[in-house]
């Protein structure tokens, strides 16, 4: 089983990286770029044998404890290939 976790900065939290990337894209000629936010994309490979529900529960715990910094970040979990 495979899980995908998307970790993004909370709304309102400064994203220095995104800002720098947006600026650089528009100075490279991509004027249509209005905003860029940088987050993490985490692929987790899990041992088979558990249900998608159970897996999601465990992933939530992993996010809370390690994968995301919940003071400034939100996360979203997707279970694939169950």
């Amino acid at each position: 089983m495979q899980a995908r976790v998307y970790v993004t900065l909370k709304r309102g939290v400064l994203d220095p990286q995104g800002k720098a990337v947006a600026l650089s894209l528009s100075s490279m000629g991509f004027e249509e770029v209005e905003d860029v936010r940088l987050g993490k994309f985490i692929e987790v490979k899990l041992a088979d044998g558990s249900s998608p529900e159970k897996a999601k529960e465990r992933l939530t715990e992993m996010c809370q404890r390690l994968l995301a910094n919940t003071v400034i970040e939100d996360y979203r979990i997707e279970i694939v290939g169950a």
Partner: protein
Amino acid sequence: MSTEITPEIVATHGLKPDEYERIQAAMKREPNLLELGIFSVMWSEHCSYKSSRKHLRGFPTSGPRVLQGPGENAGVVDIGDGLAVAFKMESHNHPSYIEPYQGAATGVGGILRDVFTMGARPIASLNSLRFGDPSHPKTAWLLEGVTAGIAGYGNAIGVPTVGGEIAFDASYNGNCLVNAFTLGVLPADKIFRGNASGVGNPVIYVGAKTGRDGIHGATMASAEFDESSEEKRPTVQVGDPFVEKLLLEACLELMQTDAIVGIQDMGAAGLTSSSVEMAGRAGNGLDMHLDRVPMREEGMTPYEIMLSESQERMLIVAKVGREKDVVAIFEKWDLDVAVVGSVSDTGTLRLFWHGQLAAELPIDPLTEGAPVYDRPRQRPADLDALQAFDPATLPAPADLGSTLLQLVARPTIASKEWVYRQYDHMVRLGTVVRPGGDAAVVRVEGKKGVALSADCPSRMVYLDPYMGGMLTVAEASRNVSVVGGEPIGLTDCLNFGNPEKPEIMWQFAEAVRGIADACRALDVPVVSGNVSLYNETDGKGIFPTPTCAVVGLVPDIERTSTTWWKEAGHEIALLGT
């Protein structure tokens, strides 16, 4: 702005009922919410030093070398040949406990700004850290986050972190300490100050845009923690060392011109403290148009703009007609810049929002007129018992060798290489004596250098605050002198518990008295410092931790000494008692 000010609103602003009465008296009317917010920030412990001010007056703050004592963004000491050094230490304890990486990073960013606003180029940083018991579940997480945050910010901006200290003790379990120090070099005759002089001069905002970061952080830092503060998590400030590096270069470039009369960084309490303090020092007033402030988010209110703690921002007062020089330099460095107001002779701070007057406050009550408390003090009842303990009554260790090994393995005593390896301690080609010894030595110019050390034997301060305060100064001065530096100035960061408790207030007053007496004895003036109170969780205070950083002048960097044994056959001597 028509919110009615209820006792609950007053309380959530960290103001006591009698303080609110004083505000009404000073205003001669009810404040509106924006005005209340500004008072709450300016009268917070963090900005007003209301519990500590009385005691700090006992520090010796002058001397033949002192060019700027406490009261400015940083202290400045003459080092001869037309050069001076500016330095200061600041705490970022509460933010670091909530989000260690960003808390520590923005602490570094803040102290750097304090130094380069004086017109000094930062050349070295130190930090003094305290964490809980190594086995406490949060300790490792805090330690990793704090050191990574210091590294992340300091390395990126290119100021070497050349030393510091770290200690672990259970008293810091719920309240770590992160104290950051920076020193910079400047021409002795070109010191910039946070002064809004010259009626009619433009007030200019530069740096990063304002967001809703850490609103109420300054009042939070002055309130004791409880279980729920981890829930209440305010919007944490995120640092951007890249923007700060641009801000540093742009400010120093601007200071080469004669376009500005005053400059101050927006630290905790952001636009509020910078504008009020600059006006206060000059005895002037300020008019500001908050809608002209560069904003990062939509729908921000004047209240949020004034209380935001967004990082990497500065407030500048320029000479009339020189706005374009300021704008040109900041645009060159791709930074935001906006003329937001002007200096007035009204003695009041007037804030406008799309042309409407949104707040009008007299400056004096916000600064000089802030409350000063002589809080009750009492010697802790258990101190006699603690002091009566005679270590000689302990049985001698059976195996001295293994006891020694156990001792050197204690995290507080063990090598800190794990930490300072993560800090770029060599950038700028100045680090003559690297971390790992008693004090670092950094080249200033030619053969001239400075020796730097930050210390605090906090257990000693706990057991005897007066003696502990003296020992703190003695230790830092000794560390500086053994590498070849003559102590010429000191900055402090006084970390204590809740000053409303008489025992804590007594610890504070005694430690300050000890520091002051030792500084007098060693002829080392205190030129800057910072107080961090309410370092308590659930009623349990930390060890009193009045950290001191001493700066020593090294006349010849080729004549310094280091701690390690050099060669077999050399003789070993033991000095002192």
